[in-house]
């Protein structure tokens, strides 16, 4: 450990100036996509076993209104995805951070999953606010405050309504992004969560006339594309803002976890239980 004599020689060894390029980003992303099918199963099981009431769904053919059970499926599904990609997220974080993004997010979302399982009678918005507060408390590093305020802002924008549609969901995701930007002061291209969240939101808006399922599918694809596109970027936020170019060649772990959340969102809409 370079404690008392950790000079620049050590720093240099940790400084991969011989950056890796786009070519390798595909293989680096592979683990992210490989586990998806399996994760979808886990998410489904998690949603079924939460005990949260399925709520009402719109008439067949009509756009399904989203409800507390949908939000619960989203959060449980996110927890399952993050658990499955914990090591991948941690690996990404090792390039520039403390290599704790995966572990922190897993701990935080596991806590969110149990909060969701225990919550009863909360509106979708209230559920999100509670999940956000849990993340702030349980996730260390930058991810806790950022994702925590995102979910809290999303919840606030939904208010106490018991059901909501795609426009309100879009508004909530917009409020979440505003919360992230307010705290982090990041812009597109800074190699942060924003680089996955912003294109996902844009895709969601562009595809809104195609229906919820198609719009959320487009959002997930755009989030994954946005996350992958952070690989050649130089990070300009966090420690990277004063440590320099060593982040180039690695996907941003925050953008990667955001794409997982949008994956869980798509499946939460697709996995609505059949009408009872």
């Amino acid at each position, binding site marked *: 450990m370079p404690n008392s004599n950790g*000079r*620049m020689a050590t720093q240099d060894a*940790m400084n991969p100036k011989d950056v890796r390029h786009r070519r390798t980003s595909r293989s680096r992303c592979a683990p992210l996509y490989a586990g998806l099918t399996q994760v979808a199963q886990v998410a489904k099981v998690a949603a079924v076993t939460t005990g949260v009431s399925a709520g009402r769904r719109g008439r067949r053919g009509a756009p399904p209104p989203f409800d507390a059970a949908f939000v619960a499926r989203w959060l449980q599904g996110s927890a399952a995805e993050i658990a499955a990609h914990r090591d991948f997220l941690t690996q990404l974080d090792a390039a520039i951070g403390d290599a704790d993004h995966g572990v922190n997010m897993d701990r935080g979302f596991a806590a969110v999953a149990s909060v969701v399982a225990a919550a009863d009678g909360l509106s979708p918005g209230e559920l999100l606010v509670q999940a956000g507060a849990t993340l702030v408390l349980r996730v260390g590093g930058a991810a*806790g405050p950022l994702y925590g305020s995102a979910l809290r802002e999303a919840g606030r924008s939904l208010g106490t309504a018991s059901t909501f549609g795609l426009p309100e969901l879009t508004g909530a995701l917009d409020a979440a992004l505003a919360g992230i*930007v307010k*705290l982090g002061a990041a812009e597109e291209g800074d190699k942060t969560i924003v680089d996955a969240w912003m294109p996902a939101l844009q895709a969601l808006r562009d595809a809104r006339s195609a229906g919820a399922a198609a719009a959320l599918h487009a959002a997930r694809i755009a989030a994954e594309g946005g996350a992958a596109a952070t690989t050649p970027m130089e990070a300009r936020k966090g420690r990277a803002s004063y440590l320099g170019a060593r982040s180039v060649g690695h996907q941003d772990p925050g953008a990667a976890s955001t794409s997982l959340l949008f994956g869980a969102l798509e499946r939460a809409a697709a996995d609505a239980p059949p009408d009872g």
Partner: protein
Amino acid sequence: MGEGRDPTIQSVDRAARILKALAAGSPRLGVSELAERLGLAKTTVHGLLRTLERQDLVEQDPETGKYRLGPELLQLGNAFLDHHELRGRSLVWADTLAERVGEAVRVGVLYGRSVLVVHHVFRPDDSVQILEVGASVPWHASALGKVHAAFLPSDRRRTLVSGPLQRLTGRTIVDPHALALALEDVAAAGFATEAHEAVIGEGEVAAAVFDHRGHPVGAIGVVGPVERLLPGGPPAELVIALTDTARRLSWEMGARRGRPGSVGHPAPRASVGG
């Protein structure tokens, strides 16, 4: 001469700008790219690069013909650190402080508008951490920078406060008036804090180190997760351990005991957030 009183030697200035261009972002640059960036003729840049190459300050990639920084710079950087008096004297004190409070410790010096981290002791656990020696943090986003600045003469403090204040996070203080007030608080308390201002999730508590004239020569600080380091306000034990270390380090740097401006035992403020 004809150039007035400026004693600068143009070619040395240009060589320095080449090195800085190679250090800023793009790891490899060709002669044309460098010429364009610096607004110089290609032949001039070529001559400068060949001279720097002879001194191992730059090297040429044999495949692409582009230039990158050379190995001699590492020797120079290490020599800078080895000869840095505050760094040398802080090695043992920083280790002891890190052990005592169980967190990472950094020693920094204000150069221009940034704090240069000259020493960094990892948090004494087995977690992965990144060495920040050599990092340059905007002074107003760092507790090290704020506490160093708080004890500077008022004219230098004013220049710092009124200069460009980059926003690193949504919590960075970028309003000159608010920053000036914050520095007054820091001077009164004898230590500075920072929460989420440079990196979301991270915080720092720092105290200044003084020389024999009572001038600040740098600062020593404890860094860690905000929720642990600054739950409301900094824990009293942490502030006592930190200011105690800063005072002893100041004595080693020649500060006279009990001299005004040197760090005394400030009463840690009660929880600021509560």
